[in-house]
């Protein structure tokens, strides 16, 4: 999976963040720059060029590291502002 993104990055010349939505149950983000809000209905976090807002139900942070986030739960909307 990450080799695939590596290949795309080399072609498209982007290198800020990656976001993967797996069946609207898990979102994996690389390149996060800080958590903004945390609740069971909404989680938002910063990336290089904006803010991602994830709405849903029973949301939780399955993993939080220096620059990755895994959001688990029932995801209804992912918004980039």
């Amino acid at each position: 999976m990450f080799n695939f993104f590596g290949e795309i990055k080399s072609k498209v010349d982007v290198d800020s963040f990656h976001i993967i939505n797996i069946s609207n149950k898990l979102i994996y983000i690389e390149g996060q720059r800080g958590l903004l809000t945390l609740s069971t209905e909404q989680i938002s976090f910063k990336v290089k060029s904006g803010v991602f807002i994830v709405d849903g139900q029973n949301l939780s942070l399955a993993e939080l590291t220096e620059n990755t986030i895994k959001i688990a739960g029932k995801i209804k909307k992912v918004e980039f502002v």
Partner: protein
Amino acid sequence: MSLGRVQFQIKGLNQEKILNKLSKKYNIYNILRLEKQISVLEVSFFIANKFKKSITESGLEVIAEKSIGILPYLLSIFSSVGFLLGLALSFVLLAIQTPFVFQYEIVGNESLSKTEIVGFLKSAIHTPKTDISTEFVEDILYEKFDEISFVSIIVKGKTLVVNIKEKLMPDEIYGDFTPIFSNYDGKVLEINVVSGISAVDVGDYVFKGDLLVKPYYIDAEGKKHNIQTKATVKLETYTIGTSTFCEEKIVTEHTGNMIVQNEISLFGLNLYKHGEENNYAMYEVVEDVTTFSKNLILPLRFTKRCIYELKQEIVKATYEEKEEEIVDDARKNALENSANYDTIKNEFYTVKHSCGISVVSYVIVGEKVVANES
């Protein structure tokens, strides 16, 4: 799958900012906001203490803490006093009993029993296994057991392994160590001992029950060893049959006259009687009683009585007239008792006369093999 994590329940404001700061140093898992100011999160077991310190330094309060996974469970066991004491005791016991031999393994024994050898070794070896001299053990085994031809000893862990090879001993060494006794009175003609020691010599007179062969032998060192007796012993023995003759004797015999009487009785009372009166001076009575009724309510008995007249006469005869008959009679008596003889060597008789009475003693001399095992 992690080996172990610690779950913290935290309370406070600005949790997102603090989590951002902490996430730069630690990986945080399963963060869930329970209420406005309360969240739960998990970190690895190995960094839990440092993380907790960081959380409290950041201004958040740790409300609860819970260990998850196998590793915390194992560590809790290993930190329990009872477990550590038991472990220490096991090591102490192991250290104490390791130098000693506790098991014996015997290989190669056939006639010797393992119990016998192990019992002997246990009584003979009292030193720690590092001090056991295998040569010493081999020597004492050779000395104790004659059956051992070769033995080798090794100490393997806590086991003393004894590998023996037994001598090929003849069958007489094992078995029933009973002596041979004589079943007859007589004279020893031959004695050939295969195993055992002879208790008699040729020409000795023995009685029934006397010991003929002993069930042991004595080696060059004067040591006695039990052995199964095997020997051939031949005895000259004899039997005597007697017959007595009287020159005058009274012979009682029937005259041929007879009276028959019939009686019917009930409870001992004669109800009916028929027959002649008995007027014989000398007689013999033969009665036959029959009970009529099958049950004993009325025990009617029928008695048939036969009365035979007897007479006595004095019969005179001389010994010479009856000699053949008398000697033959004595011989028959002697032969009855000598039926088991292997051979009959000689026969003779003696006569003793006294006051008109002659006693003939007929002797049969024979040979009998009382033991024959080769």
